[in-house]
């Protein structure tokens, strides 16, 4: 009989695998993402069920137990996913800002006739004073 923590990890892995499958069916992401998360949850399930398979690998990495290996790998994946979320949200924020500003300015461009061309942000026609 596996220890309680292994059962919890197994139940969690199965539940997350189910959620991942449901989200895939809802077309929230593609096959590549499904494959990645299937490997993550499948790996967690295997480590939970037959930790002995990873005893040698754990020892080679100087970890006491296979579950420690799962925890360390989980933390690495979590860190990577957090960074990925950060980068995605940052990009989405920038895109949202640009979109909102363009919507606001489009009203002006529709109703007014500018007397001067749109400023080029990269242009450096500022007079430099010492």
């Amino acid at each position, binding site marked *: 009989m596996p220890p309680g923590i292994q059962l919890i990890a197994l139940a969690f892995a199965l539940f997350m695998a189910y959620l991942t499958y449901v989200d895939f069916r809802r077309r929230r992401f593609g096959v590549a993402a499904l494959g990645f998360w299937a490997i993550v949850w499948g790996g967690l399930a295997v480590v939970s069920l037959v930790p002995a398979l990873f005893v040698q690998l754990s020892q080679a990495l100087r970890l006491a137990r296979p579950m420690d290996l799962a925890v360390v790998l989980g933390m690495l994946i979590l860190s990577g996913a957090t960074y990925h979320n950060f980068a995605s949200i940052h990009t989405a924020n920038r895109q949202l800002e640009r979109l909102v*500003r363009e919507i*606001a*300015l489009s009203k002006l461009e529709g109703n007014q006739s500018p007397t*001067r061309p749109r400023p080029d942000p990269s242009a450096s026609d500022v007079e430099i004073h*010492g």
Partner: protein
Amino acid sequence: MTNSIAIVIPAHQEGDRITSVLEAIPKAVSGTSRVIVIVVDDGSTDGTSRAASQTGAIVLRHPVNLGAGAALRTGTEAALLLGADIVVHMDADGQHLPEDLPRLIAPLFAGADAATGIRAFGRPMPWLFIIGNRFLSWMTRVLFSLENPDTQCAYRAFWARCWPALRWDSRDYAFASEMLVRGQRSSVRWAIVPIRTVYLDRYKGTGLGDGVRIARKLVRWRILG
């Protein structure tokens, strides 16, 4: 006298105050031939756009709230599209008095590239804001050798030609500091103009969290450029 001046006012949930602020803006400003008033409604849900439109101002609307820095950038870009020669930033809640406008822009005609208001640090400014403003101004001086006793005052004016040098990316209140820092790096010549200090009972501007964010960004700009 062919200079046109655009007064850019970012507004968020200012439906009950924006009308009086806009009506107080003079129709003519000494040294300029045309006054354009641009209100950028930053995602308000209280009828700010409608109230501003009724005064005849040009009203642009952000469908969602982006922040004061983003709203001012939208308004400044609009001002340049409309051919403004001078751009003025003014708050929508009545903190900046239109009576101070001629004094604010006067240095521009005397050779300055930009002018920024500075407030007196005393009553009626709340003590927490005095500490915060002094601290951020001190930080700016230490990190960038930039002498400005009130870096967070958003009552400013600049020649439109300075826009490429001042263009800020901050969506939040850090735009005020970013504008100064960018300007200094491009040798933009700033003038400092004392303005009257007005604080209202329903203050909605910078808070402690904003102050911390601005301080963090100042350090980042110093280290990363």
